[in-house]
């Protein structure tokens, strides 16, 4: 869903008040962290965010429970606190333990460029959930959304949806358990009936409150929200979940999406459906760090899946913001500032071995390891990930996309 930059939220007002009250440094600190559906910037305090949004922390006991139920090590993103918040995940697990399965729902607004690593993270995690729990997955490509918000043609948005589908499939989803659909192809029938039911439950004022629409926005935008709400309801997919109206839904997403799904969760009980559960991730930092903006006009702010090994090495070496000291001598004396060091942060996302990560953090923090070494290890890992992705993507044919997107039954989706 697009973001709107002009919307004023409580934090903005609070920051203005703090500034007026004097103490510039304080005001700056207040103004730093901005998290609302239109803007994420500054140093984020995730605890405060959880409080403000009203969701729950994903604590160790839940992670342990996942391990027990799935008989495998929890995903690195769970162990490292990348996916750190949730709504009703414990209920999903309760139901699962009783033998009631669930399905996964995630999606993407198809954009024109290749995906970067930040885009892949929710898909990597969703794949793990699919494999660990052996449940089906629906993936929504909101080509209509892009057509409206980015003002591209219908054909172009459909073409982009298919291109993005290839990268998504390359993440390793199981075709016998996965249904990918684009809005332009699929909206209609049971899906549309649910859209109308949802639309009837949400007032114009409410969507203005959540999405910040103004009188100047075209009606396409205003009526879009139900499109991304209804995949949470199993009756939207009669070819998959016929008769399973009480099947629960789990949505892996980034925490800035929380406000959108609050709308869905609000509506669900009124329609007689379970509220969808959420499992939420923190933000993937830009190469330049917290202060840097991951900007699509700056290809050096992210690692793309089309980057060559050389590109990756160059980007890490030249643009990654480090917490290392300026000179070797200082580094050995003071050690690195792990709080701001991007290579270490990236390693915490992608280095699977907990022991090795601890070792690097200790040595680097104490100054016994140099930034150069950390960057080198990171480059190795990222190159491996990107090359594996490229190889998998090269094997995705148009026919494979057709198969994933075909409206067909998935008989072994819970097997």
């Amino acid at each position, binding site marked *: 869903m*697009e*973001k*709107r*930059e002009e919307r004023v939220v409580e934090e903005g007002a609070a920051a203005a008040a703090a500034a007026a009250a004097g103490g510039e440094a304080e005001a700056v600190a207040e103004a730093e962290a901005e998290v609302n559906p*239109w*803007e*994420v*910037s500054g140093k984020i305090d995730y605890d405060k965010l959880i409080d403000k949004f009203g969701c729950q922390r994903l604590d160790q006991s839940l992670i342990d429970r996942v391990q027990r139920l799935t008989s495998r090590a929890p995903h690195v993103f769970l162990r490292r606190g990348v996916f750190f918040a949730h709504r009703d995940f414990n209920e999903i697990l309760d139901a699962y333990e009783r033998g009631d399965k669930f399905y996964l729902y995630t*999606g*993407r*607004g198809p*954009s*024109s*460029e*290749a995906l*970067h690593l*930040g*885009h892949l*993270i*929710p*898909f990597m995690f969703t794949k793990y959930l699919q494999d660990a729990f052996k449940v089906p997955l629906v993936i929504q490509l*909101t080509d209509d*959304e892009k057509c409206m918000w*980015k*003002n591209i043609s219908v054909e172009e948005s459909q073409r982009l949806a298919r291109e993005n589908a290839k990268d998504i499939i390359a993440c*390793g*989803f*199981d*075709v*016998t358990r996965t249904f990918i659909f684009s809005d332009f192809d699929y909206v209609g029938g049971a899906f549309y009936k649910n859209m109308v039911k949802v639309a009837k439950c949400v007032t114009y004022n409410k969507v203005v409150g959540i999405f910040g629409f103004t009188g100047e926005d075209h009606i396409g935008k205003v009526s879009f929200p139900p499109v*991304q709400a209804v995949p949470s309801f199993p009756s939207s997919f009669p070819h998959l979940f016929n008769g399973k109206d009480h099947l629960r839904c789990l949505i892996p*997403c*980034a925490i*800035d*999406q929380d406000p959108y799904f609050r709308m869905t969760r609000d509506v669900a009980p009124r329609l007689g459906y379970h509220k969808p559960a959420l499992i939420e*991730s923190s*933000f993937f*930092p*830009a190469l330049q760090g917290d202060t840097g*903006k*991951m*900007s*699509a*006009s700056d*290809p050096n702010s*992210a690692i*793309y899946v089309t*980057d*060559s090994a050389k*590109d990756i090495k160059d980007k890490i070496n030249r643009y990654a913001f480090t917490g290392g000291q300026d000179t070797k001598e200082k580094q050995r004396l003071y050690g690195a500032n792990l709080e701001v060091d991007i290579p270490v942060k990236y390693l915490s996302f992608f280095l699977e071995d907990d022991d090795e990560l601890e070792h690097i953090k200790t040595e680097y923090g104490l100054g016994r390891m140099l930034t150069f070494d950390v960057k080198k290890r990171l480059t190795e890992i990222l190159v491996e990930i990107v090359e*594996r992705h490229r*190889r998998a993507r*090269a*094997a995705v*044919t148009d*026919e*494979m996309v*057709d*198969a994933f997107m075909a409206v*067909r039954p998935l008989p072994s989706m819970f097997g």
Partner: protein
Amino acid sequence: MGYTKDQLLARLQELRIEFSKYEHPVVLTVEAQAKHVGNVGASLSKNLFLKDKKQRFYIVSALADTKVDLKVLSQRLGLGKGGLRMAPEEALGEILQVPLGCVTPFALVNESARHVSLLLDQGFKSQQGCLFHPLSNDTSISLNTLSLDKFLKSIGRDPSYVDLEANPKVGKDQPPDLAALVPSDSIVLPEFAEGAPPSEHSNENHAATDVKPKAVKAKAVKTPAVAEKVKDKSSTGVLPSISFTDAGQFVEEILDKTSAILLSEIRDDTVRQHGEQLGAVVSDTLRKRLSSELKNLAIMFKNTAYTEGFHAGTRHQPKRP
């Protein structure tokens, strides 16, 4: 970025394609190349990268001695009399992703070249071996047409051999005989020096976990017409791996990877360190290092098989009653 020489050669080996490799100093012309590999018992080729007025591109690969008349070729393709000319230098880098002096049929391995048409000299067929650059001017490889065809088929191309010296009449009752070789799509080169910058990414529905820029502007990166044809400069080859369609190859690849780790883990020092336990230790290491990778391979194999079945299913004829 485009395929490298090493990636291409590894690919040929994977496909079990026979070729001989000759390394030499960088050469930019056939004459210079002849000085180094003129006597190896294989025939030199000359390779032209051409374009027509409608931004369609061609590689004409011929024996060095074959006379290639661009005016005749242009008519035979149905492009009129002066329709073909040498492609500009930038196109070499953008589309074929090879340096100057390195035009070669092998450049078609790159995604960026998927709409480039290839015309091969019929004369190649009678040669024991023909010499081409494997994406780099400092090497030449010789292979016969059977091998070249095998490669081309592996990247989804149908090899087209043409009598390049023929000069058939082209007129009202004699249609251009090579018209089928004109590409269906034109290729527009990007106007920006760096290739297309990625477009502004918005707050995607479920997939975005990154820090958003403060000002989100809806910005179309390129006009739709250009966007249609231009491929990101850093996109790579079109080769799908055979390991995903051929069960034998699939197993070989798994065994190769396993052997490699096994051999690297059994060394004097590890034998001394673990003694009798080495087997259990290496077994654990194998699982740890390979489990995820092999599962990914397996899922792609499964998806590929399902896709083929699905495709066949959409075309199958129901049983007669």
